[in-house]
């Protein structure tokens, strides 16, 4: 029952720092997705849309109202929670595949509206014009990355902690209950609709935090964030890592981020290899890697690392 204190702040090569930041962001999103999909059993594809919504709101507030990044991030997250509420309300009446379809619709509508926007409201395909994030642009690149790394690390630890607390609380039990046996849970007094909404809100909030961080780290937001490829990548983190487990998405995020970076070297074969990877993982290991690793550790070290 030990918590994964994965990434201690140590001195590593600088180009890896930005990769690690990507890992932090996607790990948070993957965990939030896992909470909604893997634990609570709601097959939502809306996490990326909430992520993007938070990021866009944050960036937009900074640009158009000249708010400080901190305040904008705060409001960005609040708005993303509202967005997840809007997505949640029609989705909770549905089940299984229909939730996928409903949430994909929201995602696609958002993406197309952003891409087609020629009024300059959101910057269309090219995204928002650049702005400053938490760390002032006057610092050098190295210093900026260094500070952003620690902010990202803090965010990751915070989000993981929240997930841990939720999973081990009564609410977490409720999530698992409605994920596995909603009818029985309902008969034992758990309000299925209410719990589902809570799952959406918490998951959305976490994704929003990641989105707001992304907005202030990159200094811009682009519709590319909502691309099919990105969504598949993050979704794969949850699936490859192990959906329904605690550390699955973290492992998945680590693996996918580094594979993605590694595959950049293979250029045009990159996507093909990624595709084969996804197929083989889902066919051979339908539960993800985390249960496998857990069994391995269990057998040889008698430690039960993962929830």
């Amino acid at each position: 029952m030990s918590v994964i204190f994965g990434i201690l702040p140590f001195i590593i090569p600088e180009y890896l720092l930005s990769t690690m930041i990507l890992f932090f962001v996607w790990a948070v999103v993957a965990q939030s997705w896992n909470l909604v999909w893997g634990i609570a059993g709601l097959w939502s594809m809306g996490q990326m849309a909430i992520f993007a919504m938070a990021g866009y709101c944050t960036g937009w507030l900074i640009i158009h109202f000249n708010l400080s990044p901190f305040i904008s991030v705060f409001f960005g997250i609040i708005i993303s929670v509202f967005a997840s509420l809007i997505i949640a309300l029609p989705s909770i009446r549905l089940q299984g595949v229909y939730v996928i379809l409903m949430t994909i619709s929201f995602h696609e509508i958002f993406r197309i509206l952003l891409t087609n926007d020629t009024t300059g409201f959101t910057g269309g395909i090219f995204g928002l014009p650049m702005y400053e994030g938490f760390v002032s642009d006057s610092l050098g690149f190295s210093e900026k990355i260094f500070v952003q790394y620690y902010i990202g690390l803090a965010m990751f630890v915070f989000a993981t902690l929240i997930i841990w607390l939720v999973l081990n609380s009564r609410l977490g039990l409720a999530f698992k209950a409605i994920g596995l046996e909603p009818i029985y849970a309902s008969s034992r007094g758990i309000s299925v609709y209410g719990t589902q909404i809570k799952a959406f809100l918490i998951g959305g909030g976490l994704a929003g935090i990641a989105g707001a961080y992304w907005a202030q780290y990159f200094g811009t937001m682009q519709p590319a964030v909502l691309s099919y490829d990105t969504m598949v990548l993050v979704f794969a983190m949850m699936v490859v890592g192990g959906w329904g487990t605690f550390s699955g998405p973290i492992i998945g995020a680590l693996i996918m981020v580094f594979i993605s970076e590694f595959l950049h070297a293979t250029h045009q074969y990159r996507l093909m290899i990624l595709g084969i990877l996804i197929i083989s993982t889902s066919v051979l290991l339908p539960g993800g890697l985390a249960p496998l690793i857990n069994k391995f550790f269990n057998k040889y070290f008698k430690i039960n690392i993962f929830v």
Partner: protein
Amino acid sequence: MGLFLNTLVAIAYTTVVLGSIFAASSVSLSLIYGTMRFLNLAHGSFLVIGGYVAWVFAHYLGLPLYLAIVFATGFGFALGLFTYFIMLKPLLGIGSPKWDIATIIASVGLAIFLEAAILLIFGPRLKALPHAIEGSVIIGTTVIRYNALFIGAVAIAMLVITNWYLTNSRNGIALRAVASDVDAAYLMGIPSSKMFASAIAISGALATSAGALLGSFYLLKPDRGLDPMMTAIVVVVFGGLGSIKGTIIAAYIVGFIQAFVALTIGIKWSLPVLFAFMIVVLIFRPYGLYGESQQKRI
């Protein structure tokens, strides 16, 4: 002719041709989902591959369009079988939530792989399929290409053939039995795994030929798969997941909506409107027009 009539003609023409193609494409998706609850997210890439395979036969071998389409259909049949052996057979019997998720993810992986392969083999530039019949007729301001009418006719022919197959042939009836109730069909002596293979093979054949037709109507581009697939998904949901008749009717309605929006408000609004429409359908009638009421509600 007034603007209104002109637009009407254009809408009618697009609806008939595109609707037929969407119908073929969506029947493919619906057949697969109805038979084995597998939402094939590689469907878009099947469409694209169909177009490119037809192109290879037409361009390199100089075959006329209809033969190229036939070969594309055959390729799709093989592609379906390939998908079955790679992805579906290993996962059979794994139980509900894992099956759904694993098959969807695997199909996404397949889609990524196929589209990357197409990009690699064929390059990113647009390609065109040869026309079956040259020439066009002009009604008002709408140019009606004879080739487009031909494509529409082929699509409708495919639908008729598929429908005949499903209702009159032994294999087809067995497929419908499996789609209706796997266990009962099994008790009747119908081997479900063979039926699954058969279903996805037919579905693949339909998808690639629909893709060839689509490519003939428009142009061939490697990343063209997503939009038609999303449209097919909307059609299938609206028609009712698993119902062939509903899917066909829904295809024409959706084709009409797309044509209407594209020709009145603007093309870039057609997809968002379609998705908004799907949201409305999912809220008020999630089983679609003719979908079966599965006990998938709380």
